[in-house]
């Protein structure tokens, strides 16, 4: 699943990230954990690959995506590179009532603010 990531361009990775986020939203709102987790693993590997190429900021435009799950998952992965924007996005999503994405945004925000988050550290390409 993750082996061919290095062969993909950044645009392809971002495209797949967004695609997965939309599908994960459907699983997430339906409470389907297993398919969600399967897609999560792929998406997380993509985010790590973007990070290793110092290209995680290419996810930032997704913070304006029409799908709230794309906004949420982009924000959760971009906290290290743009705290201000991701925090604002998560706060806005946290206002959503009755939908799982709202709960997730609130939990994520609390984890980030508590300092419990496991951040990726300095990008290998930058350091």
């Amino acid at each position, binding site marked *: 699943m*993750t082996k061919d990531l290095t062969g993909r361009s950044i645009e392809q990775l971002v495209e797949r990230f967004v695609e997965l986020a939309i599908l994960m939203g459907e699983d*997430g709102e339906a*409470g389907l*954990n297993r398919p*969600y*987790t399967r897609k*999560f*693993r792929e998406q*997380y*590997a993509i*985010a790590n690959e973007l990070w290793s190429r110092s290209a995680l900021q290419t996810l930032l435009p997704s913070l304006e995506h029409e799908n709230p799950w794309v906004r949420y*998952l982009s924000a*959760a*992965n971009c*906290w290290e590179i743009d705290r201000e924007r991701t925090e604002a996005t998560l706060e806005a999503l946290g206002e959503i009532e009755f939908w*799982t994405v709202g*709960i*997730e945004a*609130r*939990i*994520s925000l*609390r*984890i*980030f603010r508590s300092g*419990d*988050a*496991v951040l990726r550290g300095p990008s290998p390409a930058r350091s």
Partner: protein
Amino acid sequence: MHGHTRWVSRDRPDFARSGPERCWIDGDLIRLSHWPVGGIRAGVRGKPVPWLMDLRVLEDAMREVYGRDFALGDRAPLLQLAADALADGDRRRAAEIADAIAFPPPEFKSRFRDAGLRYLAWGAAHNRGNPRVDIDAWLARAGLESKYDPDQPRVPRGHPDGGQWTGGNGAGRDGAVGNVAIPEDGATDGSDEELDTGDEPLTEEQQRLVEIFDDARKDLTDASGENAPLVLIGGDEKPPRFPRTKREALAWLAAWLTEEMKRRGSFPGRNSPIWMEINDFAREWVNRINRIFPEFEGYWESAKEWEEMIADKDFRDFNSFEAFKRKYKSAGPFRDWHHVVEQGSGFSKKMINNTANIVRIPRGKHWDVVYAMTKPRPELGGLSYREWLVGRSFSEHMRVGLDVLREVKALK
């Protein structure tokens, strides 16, 4: 199905009765409580056997089923103690030892509960990238890697050492560092789930601890041969693994402790209370582990928190969730009982099944809570709350549990 329970005679007054239904047949396992002590033919289930198992009776049964001799004691060090006592003709003591293996006295049990060793074993079972409790991470940190190879040759059946790993490419069961080996070039297998374990080398003391743990794991996973009757943990087709349940962890730790006692050469005397010494020994090792791996320190706090919690006079605790429901009945239509600190979190049953930990919430909210606990999170390095909480203190479990309840608006 075929009346296999005839092995366990109800007319053996010389054996300690261990209370109702502590021993029964479950699937293809004979269980002492939840602890599997021996495999039998699959297909026999649901036969409660309310008597303590006689090792020899069990071995007879094995012989009958598998058509060859078994020495169960060879595979579980504490069972060996029982077997030794049997050999001495001290049947009463053998029965007491076996009883103690399956059901440690409350004193020992409580130390056990709070020792954190259990969490260590239990948590490591998850092996899902939580570096706090991952034995493989320790091995990697020590510059070692797991060397389990299912294709490694074994001593054939029929031999006294049947099923044991044998020399193969020179690295035998009695190799330098248990079943781990120093990689030739420091290279790893490149797996996706590899942990970033840092570069700090293990001290000599840590090294020793890793070896002991690894030995214990090996001892419990050496289920030998195709017809291995003792399915403690793992089996022939499966790679060795850490215990996945608390009961397995109990067995695992007991075996480990006993092995260490053997190493120290100090067995409890015939007339000494067998668990007193193990108890002291466990305490000593808990202190050592605490010192060597400071990241485990949070585990030992549970006992204090628990004592504070039960100081509440309205507090009621139960030995099981079923007992709780017998008292409080159903949660009502479209409502569920929810454990704030989850049932699988590894704390004792009374810590989990009590009025301070169980709340009544709408079923939809309950689903939301379960989802929120199990969903992997990028901000936690891909772990879910449930995974992230492994090995953390009771108060941290409680804090997260309450926070999630607030998030789903089941709690104000």
